[in-house]
């Protein structure tokens, strides 16, 4: 619980507030106290908690996998190396299944996204008050530990995927080919005048579908994890409502956590799979 016996609304708001560092309206730099101050900082502010946890988990992933990679030989694998190889083969199989072109980037990209997103999602299973309480004891006012409940994180990754999609679209098909893809379909005609007339309609449709890819990719992950986190927060509210409610809360939290494992895993998998599919679309001619 946050300090000074907060109301329910305050409790929820507190849990949904990132630790934001930026420039205050008075010109000084520092951490925002409350949602209004954070909002007032505008674009040039950074969520320290999101960055900290995502980079920590990403580094943890790469450190562990790098260690396993250094030990990887053609000999019989054991322990953690087995686990790593299992994940790598799983990702490799998925990439082979959906991606039919030659590109050394796609499989490592898929692996990174899958494990990184999975680790970030898994933070959702840590009871909602543990880490914020520890942070509070250390004098940190806000602490949101699940990076994927921050749209910045999911949009950031989706943006990376989107840029790659554009890059490979242009690289494989050329600027003309990519432009043609955006303007010459789905409405097609042999008559050149009709063709030109179709261009705005085609471009509108294709542009929307192009932009919707990163938006849906990031919003899907964000929405699922945010909703899950929200329910954990609501369940956590039960703990302050007496013994009976606390027991019910414990049971509910356990049950929701079990169910949430599925979402944690599934959303990481979907994020990876869609990334592979988008890159496949970028590589193939329509």
């Amino acid at each position: 619980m946050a300090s000074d016996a907060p109301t329910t609304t305050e409790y929820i708001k507190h849990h949904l507030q990132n630790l934001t560092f930026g420039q205050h309206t008075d010109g000084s730099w520092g951490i925002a106290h409350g949602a209004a101050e954070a909002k007032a900082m505008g674009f040039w502010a950074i969520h320290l908690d999101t960055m900290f946890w995502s980079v920590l988990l990403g580094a943890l992933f790469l450190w562990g996998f790098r260690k396993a990679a250094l030990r990887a030989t053609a000999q019989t694998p054991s322990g953690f190396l087995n686990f790593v190889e299992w994940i790598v083969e799983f990702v490799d199989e998925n990439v082979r299944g959906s991606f039919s072109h030659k590109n050394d980037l796609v499989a490592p990209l898929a692996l990174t996204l899958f494990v990184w997103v999975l680790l970030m999602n898994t933070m959702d299973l840590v009871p909602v008050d543990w880490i914020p309480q520890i942070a509070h004891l250390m004098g940190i006012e806000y602490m949101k530990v699940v990076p994927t409940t921050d749209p910045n994180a999911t949009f950031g990754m989706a943006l990376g995927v989107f840029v790659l999609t554009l890059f490979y679209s242009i690289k494989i098909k050329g600027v003309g080919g990519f432009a043609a893809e955006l303007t010459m379909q789905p409405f097609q005609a042999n008559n050149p005048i009709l063709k030109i007339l179709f261009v705005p309609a085609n471009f509108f449709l294709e542009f929307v579908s192009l932009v919707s890819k990163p938006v849906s990719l990031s919003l899907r992950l964000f929405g699922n994890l945010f909703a899950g986190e929200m329910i954990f927060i609501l369940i956590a509210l039960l703990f302050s409502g007496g013994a009976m409610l606390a027991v019910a809360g414990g049971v509910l939290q356990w049950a929701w956590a079990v169910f949430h494992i599925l979402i944690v895993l599934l959303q990481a998998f979907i994020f990876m799979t869609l990334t592979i599919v988008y890159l496949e679309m970028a590589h193939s001619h329509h």
Partner: protein
Amino acid sequence: MNINLTLIGQSVAFIVFVWFCMKFVWPPIVTALNERKTKIADGLAAAEEGQREKAKAQEHVAQVTSEAKEQAQEIIRRAERREVEMIEEAKGSARVEGDRVLTAARSEIDKEANMAREALRAQVAGLAVAGASKILAREVDSDAHAKMLDDLIAEL
């Protein structure tokens, strides 16, 4: 939940992580996996090859054994034949030897008999002459009647 600089920070972190994974994590693991796959495939192929070799060797052993058996049979058969031949030969030579000994004995007997006959004849002739000379005494001149006596001897 404001969109802010975190977006760019995340993008940068994402790019760095993917780059690191692509450079230092993915290649060694996949290389090891592929190497192991090749090694296992080779091992399986070698095992299969070994099985084939074993089957071939067993076939060879069976063939050699049967050949050896056949040869042994052949040798035994030949030995038996040789035995029979040797017995036959021995029998033959024994018969020939027997015949020869018999013939020699017969001719010896004949010779002895002839000699005895000759001696007997001579003695008979002598006796006859002596008898006759006793009978005839003076009338018979042994010189004058030698021819007649000889003829007599030859007739005996």
